[in-house]
């Protein structure tokens, strides 16, 4: 009925639209092609959701919903001492007070100020409490218990819903995706964590041992535990960490209240005789042990329970132990009320059934790597775990404090609990900050110790930041050499980007979300359960055990737990979906049928990956031209498509229940959905590649890694930022050949690269092994010119004895000019903006008081307390210079100097130094097709080949890069780019689409060029025509961050390590260049013994020792302390490391004695 209404309405509207001759500037003749224009849903989707919607949704859910749940679960604080006392949390809010508006949070410090001043971008957490003071009950509102770090662009962030102009006022970039935190001035991202789904049964088998096991990881707010139902030698047991032994399954079921063997058989095997045969052996086990009643079974289990009792809790009987084990520890996510174990018994029976089924048919095991069995944990969930832990600790501390005070018999004034609550308030703030800034998530409740949860947001380029926000890290160990979790799963189609994963050890474990992926948040179970019963599912608690597993009966499972049965699963699912499309159920609740398990699964839990698809009904797409027109005219948003039932979200499991057509022409009668746009299977980073569907797939993966290293524009606020290291391109260009993704992620507004004119030819031999030849004139004109900005921070400390660091002024020589070291300084002792600074010059002339470490009390100062002036004078003389000196191979310019006050009232000085670099020999460049190369030679323009038009290339690339790499996309980019240049258009290289190569060739011919993009070139040196036609045109080239200037290193003499006296290691320590094992082998094989001696000893750690030929040990100053003589002392040179070894051996009671003799 309802749907017909909607359809009628739609038809009416569509008809009305048609009646109008000119519709919002569009005449009837403007065709709207549903097949082509449906991609407009994608920008609409991104407009509503943004690129990092998963983070924002998750955080918003945490702050608005989850936080309240946590507080509700821990709302009471009672005292052990005073039974009349209580404190109850009524409400919790972040960022606004009880009389405030949740939509308009309090004004916080702007995020950019937090970045600059090394502060944390956070908002106060307010609670309302009700507590007793004496006899009175008092309600106190807006008590601040700490500060919550705010995710940028979340609904608690001041940037939420701002216009571009307002963003500019706040020094923020409107294109910045948000979704990260600012803690102590650094931007931190909580990466998405991939896990096996919680509270679901997973059946696995170990082929070798013949073990089949069903396991479920139960996870609630209170506890986390894992329960196994395991088959061993044909017998089935239950295994749990807190039960010392495996318990026969029949005993467990009896303990859970299913006493009758018949009922057990019915619940596990139904009426299937094959399953009954497999299972029947288990009954013997129970009868052998003489366990027939529930009480006997509970006692049996009670004896096996590992008891970990807290100090003051009373000792339990064996029966109680057993009851508690069944009630709380086994399958802990099901709560037991009034000792009604039926639900739990059914759950265990279901697990057992799955084991039995798998024993019969091994194909029924679950795939751990299947994306539908995974859940993604986002910032919100992780924060909620952390907050609950901290909140509990906060309450415990508060309670302990209360008890301490309440214990005291007499009190002067009436006890007010609130006076004691604020003391610990820093714990919550500090705990949250510490966890986010270090990335160590340690929760005592779950014994969880996770490191590396957060990462510093990479601001190398806009794409790097964006790529980080979509990254998913897996919990699997990186070191294990298994292929399963790393492989590309078919179920990841459309959900995770197939190209964007790192190479090397994390390959396949770190993934990236595709463009349209959404991650669900938790939905309430109760209404869905109710709805199921209304739709005709029979309540499981009322069902007869005999009927549950009869043929044709389907179980209805909600979040993995059976809640009912139905005999009409298809109808049930159809109705349920219908209601969801009408908006009666949340769009993110998924439903699918599993025929093997005879089950209808409804999932409403958070962390599932899903994506929107267009619904197809009766072989027709529900999205019609009229709808798309409304979208174009800004009447409809993406959510309207959702609420009108034209588009719906499918998760991985439900996708398997659907037949999804790629294009409209692929629709068959059974089709249920159609893709919005095929290129959305790629992520934001892989979306930059033009014509990726023509490339060899690893090349796209390489580009995904390299796109993040490309230097370009970072954000509109890039010149306002003071980052540790910032790379910027002077003249970034948007690519000639772009993709729809590029426009969607706004890469064309913050690009990273140049449209270089490339000639694919060999030149001079300095282009072998992927080296590139650059045109000097291009470089002169600004090609690849970039800036490197480096931050230098200094804090003017205050010391306990009331002294503090100062900045002293600039020193001048006799002529009044500043001395060399102070050349960049101004009068105030800080470097002046714009001044050049050479290596060895200082940018902050900081001075540290020499008596800083002296204590406040007891020092000599205490005596002169009545002579403050003299003391002041003393102070001035007692400063030691501790300047910040610039060191670098190349001079820099002072870009910005900032002086502010940080968190702890200490002055904070940040100096930003800038270098402008032109490309040089050895700098790294790459195209967008995983083709990287270093600059091998810079050639003058007149030496470069030139075409009929007088064009000489910016880059010459060796053609050997093509055959083995098979990057056909790069060639197509060149042809499309060339056509675009000639025609004056930007061309598209969108995946599975883009400008057609034939069209592009036609344009080339039209403009008088060869259809294949090959031109006749003349040699620049001889002026003669080249004998081959040269593939010649624009290709987008990125300059990568690896520059020679940052890597060049040489050393003649320099520092040595203290212990071994060998040269230090590494560029940063001005280390030596190691003559390694293999090099040593060469020298040995060649026979250059003197060279060997020089390299390995004389140039390294030669040391003269006195050897006593008498005892063979080392002496000193011509004296042997062992022999007490100087008779047999011989001087010789050995490596210091050898001397060290001998001494270490001596220290271990081994005497290495040197026997010397002549070799020749």
């Amino acid at each position, binding site marked *: 009925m309802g749907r017909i209404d909607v359809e009628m309405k739609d038809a009416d509207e569509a008809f009305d639209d048609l009646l109008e001759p000119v519709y919002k500037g569009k005449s009837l003749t403007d065709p709207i092609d549903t097949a082509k224009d449906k991609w407009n849903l994608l920008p609409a989707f991104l407009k509503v959701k943004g690129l990092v919607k998963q983070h924002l949704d998750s955080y918003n859910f945490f702050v608005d919903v989850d936080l309240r749940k946590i507080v509700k679960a821990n709302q009471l604080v009672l005292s052990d001492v005073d039974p009349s006392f209580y404190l109850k949390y009524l409400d919790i809010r972040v960022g606004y007070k009880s009389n405030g508006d949740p939509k308009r949070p309090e004004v916080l410090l702007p995020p950019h100020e937090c970045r600059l001043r090394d502060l944390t971008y956070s908002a106060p957490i307010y609670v309302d409490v009700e507590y007793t003071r004496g006899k009175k009950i008092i309600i106190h509102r807006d008590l601040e218990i700490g500060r919550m770090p705010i995710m940028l662009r979340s609904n608690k962030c001041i940037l939420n819903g701002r216009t571009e102009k307002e963003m500019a006022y706040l020094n923020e970039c409107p294109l910045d995706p948000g979704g990260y935190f600012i803690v102590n001035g650094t931007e931190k991202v909580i990466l998405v964590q991939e896990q096996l789904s919680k509270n679901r049964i997973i059946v696995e088998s170990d082929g070798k041992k013949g073990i089949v096991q069903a396991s479920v990881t139960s996870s609630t707010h209170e506890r986390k535990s894992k329960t196994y139902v395991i088959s061993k030698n044909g017998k089935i047991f239950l295994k749990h960490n807190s039960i010392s032994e495996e318990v026969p399954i029949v005993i467990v079921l009896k303990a859970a209240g299913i006493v009758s063997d018949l009922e057990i058989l019915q619940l596990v095997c139904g009426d299937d005789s094959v399953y009954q045969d497999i299972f029947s052996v288990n009954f013997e086990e129970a009868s052998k042990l003489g366990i027939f009643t529930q009480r006997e079974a509970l006692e049996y289990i009670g004896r096996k329970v590992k008891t970990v009792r807290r100090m003051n809790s009373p000792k339990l009987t064996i029966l109680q132990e057993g009851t508690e084990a069944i009630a709380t520890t086994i399958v802990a996510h099901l709560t037991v009320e009034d000792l009604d174990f039926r639900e739990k018994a059914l759950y265990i029976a279901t697990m057992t059934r799955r084991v039995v089924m798998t024993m019969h048919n091994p194909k029924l095991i679950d795939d751990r790597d299947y994306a539908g069995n995974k859940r993604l944990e986002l910032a919100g969930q992780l924060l909620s775990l952390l907050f609950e832990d901290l909140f509990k600790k906060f309450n415990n501390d508060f309670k302990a404090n209360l008890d301490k005070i309440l214990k005291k018999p007499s009190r002067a004034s009436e006890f007010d609990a609130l006076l004691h609550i604020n003391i610990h308030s820093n714990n919550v703030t500090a705990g949250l900050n510490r966890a986010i800034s270090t990335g160590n998530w340690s929760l005592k409740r779950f014994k969880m110790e996770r490191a590396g949860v957060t990462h510093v947001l990479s601001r190398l380029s806009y794409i790097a930041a964006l790529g980080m926000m979509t990254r998913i890290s897996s919990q699997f160990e990186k070191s294990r050499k298994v292929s399963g979790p790393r492989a590309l799963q078919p179920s990841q189609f459309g959900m995770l980007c197939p190209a964007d994963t790192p190479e090397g050890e994390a390959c396949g474990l770190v993934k990236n979300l595709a463009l349209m992926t959404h991650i669900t948040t938790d939905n309430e179970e109760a209404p869905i359960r109710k709805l199921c019963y209304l739709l005709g599912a029979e309540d499981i608690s009322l069902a007869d055990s005999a009927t549950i597993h009869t043929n044709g009966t389907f179980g209805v499972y909600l979040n993995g737990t059976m809640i009912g049965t139905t005999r009409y699963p298809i109808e049930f699912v159809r109705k349920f979906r219908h209601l969801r499309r009408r908006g009666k159920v949340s769009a993110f609740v998924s439903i699918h049928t599993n025929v093997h398990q005879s089950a209808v699964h409804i999932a409403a839990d958070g962390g599932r990956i899903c994506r929107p698809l267009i619904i197809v009904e009766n072989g027709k797409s529900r999205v019609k031209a009229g709808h798309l027109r409304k979208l174009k005219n800004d009447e409809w948003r993406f959510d309207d498509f959702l609420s009108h039932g034209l588009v719906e979200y499918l998760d991985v499991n439900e996708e398997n229940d659907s037949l999804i057509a790629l294009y409209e022409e692929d629709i068959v009668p059974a089709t249920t959905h159609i893709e919005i746009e095929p290129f959305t299977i790629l992520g934001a980073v892989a979306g930059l590649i033009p014509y990726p569907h023509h490339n060899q797939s690893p090349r796209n993966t390489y580009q995904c890694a390299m796109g993040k290293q490309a230097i370009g524009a970072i954000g509109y606020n890039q010149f306002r930022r003071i980052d540790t290291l910032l790379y910027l391109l002077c003249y970034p260009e948007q690519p000639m050949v772009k993709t729809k993704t590029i426009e969607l992620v706004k890469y064309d507004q913050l690009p990273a690269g140049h449209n270089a004119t490339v000639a694919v030819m060999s030149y001079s031999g300095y282009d072998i092994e992927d080296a590139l030849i650059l045109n000097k*004139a291009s470089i*002169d004109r600004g090609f690849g010119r970039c800036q490197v900005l480096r931050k230098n921070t200094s804090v003017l400390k205050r010391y306990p004895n009331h002294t503090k660091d100062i900045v002293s002024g600039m020193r001048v020589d006799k002529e009044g000019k500043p001395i060399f070291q102070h050349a960049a300084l101004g009068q105030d002792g800080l470097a002046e903006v714009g001044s050049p600074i050479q290596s060895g010059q200082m940018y902050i002339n900081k001075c540290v008081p020499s008596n800083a470490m002296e204590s406040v009390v007891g020092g000599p100062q205490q005596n002169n307390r009545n002579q403050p002036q003299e003391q002041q004078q003393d102070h001035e003389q007692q400063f030691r210079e501790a300047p910040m000196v610039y060191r670098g191979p190349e001079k820099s310019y002072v870009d910005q100097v900032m002086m502010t006050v940080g968190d702890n009232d200490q002055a904070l000085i940040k100096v930003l130094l800038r270098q402008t670099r032109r490309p040089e020999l050895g700098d790294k460049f790459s195209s967008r097709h995983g083709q990287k190369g270093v600059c091998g030679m810079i050639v003058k323009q*007149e030496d470069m080949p030139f075409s009929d038009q007088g064009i000489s290339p910016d880059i010459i690339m060796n053609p050997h890069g093509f055959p083995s790499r098979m990057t056909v996309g790069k060639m197509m980019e060149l042809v499309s780019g060339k056509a675009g240049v000639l025609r004056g258009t930007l061309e598209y290289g969108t995946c599975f689409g883009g400008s057609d190569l034939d069209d592009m060739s036609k344009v080339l011919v039209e403009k008088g060029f060869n259809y294949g993009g090959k031109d*006749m070139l*003349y040699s620049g040196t001889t*002026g003669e025509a*080249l*004998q081959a036609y040269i593939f010649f045109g624009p290709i987008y080239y990125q300059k990568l961050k690896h520059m020679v200037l940052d890597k060049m290193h040489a050393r003649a003499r320099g520092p040595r390590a203290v212990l071994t006296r060998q040269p230090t290691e590494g560029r940063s320590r001005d280390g030596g260049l190691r003559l390694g094992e293999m090099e040593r082998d060469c020298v040995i094989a060649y026979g250059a013994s003197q060279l060997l001696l020089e390299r390995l000893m004389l140039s390294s750690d030669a040391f003269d020792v006195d050897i006593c030929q008498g005892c063979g040990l080392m002496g000193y100053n011509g004296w042997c302390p062992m022999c007490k003589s100087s008779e047999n002392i011989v001087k010789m040179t050995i490596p210091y490391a050898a001397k060290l070894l001998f001494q270490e051996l001596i220290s271990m009671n081994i005497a290495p004695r040197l026997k010397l003799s002549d070799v020749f």
Partner: protein
Amino acid sequence: MTDLGSNIIGIEEDRVTNTHSNDFPAYSQSIGSGWDLEAFKKKFQLNVSFITERTANFDLIGLDTSIANAYRRIMISEVPSVAIEYVYIFNNTSVIQDEVLSHRLGLVPLKVDPDLLTWVDQSADEKDKFTDENTIVLTLNVTCTKNPNATKGDNRPENLYRNSNVYARDLKFEPQGRQLETFKDHPVVPCDPDILLAKLRPGQEISLRAHCILGIGSDHAKFSPVATASYRLMPQINILQPITGQDALKFQECFPSGVIGINEKGEAFVKDPRKDTVSREVLRHERFKGKVTLGRVRDHFIYNVESTGAMTPEEIFFKSVRILRNKAEYIRNCPIGNVN
């Protein structure tokens, strides 16, 4: 195999043949004039197709590739011109950094006759380095302010602010010493006054002084007096068999318009090969196989010289000839050259 003596470069579908030049002594007994002056005089032609203020297009016919290429190379890299080389920044509060602004300034082509300046002696003392003979001083002083008379509702920065865009025309010439005299009639200005140098917002200002000196393109591209200086070879189309009817139309389409004409018999003929861009499109089609060959005349160079504006293009070319002559002179007088 093409005839060794032929001066036609073969344009084939997949390769270019007979590219090597041969008009130099001792290449062969029979081929080429071997730099015989009389023969050269007879053969050599110079045809000018057009010369404008900025562009010159002319043909040089009958000279060896090496010489033709030498002119091209010299025009690009060795004909001196004047550009900003030293920038002294007093204040720059714009978003564009000092180095980048200086770089942009350097690339602005200036209308200065390079003959009026002498070379800067790089070895001289910093104090005596720049004189009124070798240096031109330009200043740029721009401050952006709010426009009090801005029309309401117009939010373009040009309306809201004064001096929101800094253009090349804002560079002001400051004559030094005798320059008042020498540059009286033609003060130093940028060739293209509309080059955008920087954008400003109220409160921002740029104040700098720039020294322009003489330099050559091989030192930095900004000293190159040409935007492009290059040549192409004269295309040649040989119709071997008559092409008529529909084929003729198709044949015509394979070339840029005006290259192929169709006579009253409906037969295609080569009207103006100079207009051909040698796209080789005709070679792709099976139906023209064997009916046409393409080629280019190896000693017919169609030069195209685009000046940046400081000098006229013909002047640049003449200078390149002069420089080449001086080089030849130098080598002739070189001690090594005079051994025998």
